[in-house]
């Protein structure tokens, strides 16, 4: 197995709870973006 085949999803592999891995990545990035918003709000309120 070579090239792009190796980076494709193995058969039957999906992200539990999220349906697909790209969706899971988007959720993780969404949580991270929310964290940044909280940190920024923290900075504005207390600095």
């Amino acid at each position, binding site marked *: *197995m070579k090239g792009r085949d190796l980076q494709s999803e*193995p058969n039957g592999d999906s992200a539990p709870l999220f349906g697909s891995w790209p969706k899971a990545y988007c959720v*993780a990035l969404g949580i991270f973006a929310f964290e940044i918003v909280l940190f920024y709000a*923290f900075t504005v309120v207390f600095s």
Partner: protein
Amino acid sequence: MNRLDYVVLIATILAIPLYGLWRTRGRKTLGYYIKGDESIRWATIGLSVLATQAGPITFLSMPGQAYESGIGFVQNYFGQPFALITVCAVFVPIFQRLKVYTAYEYLGQRFDQKTRLLGAFLFLIQRGLAAGITIYAPAIILSALLGWRLNLTIWLAGGLVVAYTAFGGTKIVSITQRYQILIIFVGMALAFIIAVHRLPAGLSFGRALTVAGGMGKLQAVDFSLDPDRRYTFWSGIFGGFFLALSYFGADQSQVQRYLAGGSLTASRFGLLFNAVVKVPMQFLILLLGAMVFLFYQFEEPPIYFNRPAYDRAIALGHGAELNELQAEFDDVFARKRDLLNSSGVNSASRQEILQLDAKARELRDRAKAVLERAGASPKSKDSDYVFITFVLQHLPHGVVGLLIAVILCATMSATAATLNALGSTSAVDFYRPLIRPNAPDHHYVVATELLTIAWGLVAIGVASYASLVENLIETGNILGSIFYGSILGLFLVAFFLRSVRGSAVFFAALLAQCLVLILFWTLSISYLWYNLIGCAAVLVFSLALQRTIFAKSSLA
């Protein structure tokens, strides 16, 4: 430390490895020894990845970092979630599909044997030295403040890790890291609660944050584009991404953590857990440092936290000079505390408080200069002693023992992951293909155990001579930055430059590594740039070599 502290400390650091040894008893196959078994779940993998990265420096130095410069350092981690998702999407499926034991095995399959050995060799040099620094850094601080013998501290911390890592392999590393990181969370949470509780009675937590913010310690996010600013959102996103991609994608000590368990889903969830948890964790550790800073606005701090070094300077005849500075420091502290007690940080008092704070910092710098002149300058920054001084002087007995256990747990978890990776890489990438290609499986398990012990002895040896190194904490980061770029470059060429073959990338990586070493010895740029330079050089050189000197091989 009293007897209760020692009981808590010894029970904590011994119970976890003993439990791990019990869980991993019995005969092992090479696959079990290096990758664990199917029972390792995503939560254990996630905590194990977290514990591998969060070494003792994280818990000793980070609060001190916030004490000195505020919590803006958290931005350095902003690139990490993007890097972890890239590793999930690109690196993990390939490693899992090919069922490799080490990341460098993939280089052998994609290119050739010499490229695999080069990647593995660069990893072994870098991590072998860094493991010694990981053991030495907390040992020098703990031995200085607690009066423990340095070599005994190094051998006790190092020897225990070597013993259980060599015996249990990857599974024991994952199991022990899970409990070690939980102990670390509990210890740091207790320190946070007590630091807030020890603030003056009339100062609520919200008011305390306002005071710390007013003194410039709580700027977590800075969107400035000014290149002179040390920590900004943008430098964190771009610089942090590159460093984290090298670390999580090409460093076997991390690759081995997320390949444990053997399931792609478990590996990915373990990494995604880190993508959402790591930044808040660092934020809270830095916020703890800000609370310690605030505590020392009302309780006088030492002018120099590394007391043994300070006392050495006095013994060397610099007492009068230091006493003069101390008297001035006492006066500045009293004026600042009175101002904070009477009016807090408001528009009228803020300027004066900041001036007094700057004056206190200047006095600390002058004290440090006296120590340097006296030849009593320590091998690490004074800010590294801030948190541990707070712990030893202001936390209740029992909690002190737990916090010392936190530092040692962090040392053991980071070192165990490193030794496990060093032993596995030496056995799988060097011993098996080059020395004994067709031996029974059990032979390789024993070889990996012995190589893990050998690397443990190397790490302890490096730790024993690390006093020759000027700045310990920087040294670990510099070592990583010098070698990571070339190693990451090998993997990026493998994934994305499909026309490039083994010989081109092999010589490109050698040239890139030479270039980085020459630049390191001749330039004085920030070491973080060497990651980018090394990786970019491998990509450019490999394309150039493939299209010129090795053009024939791409047609073959």
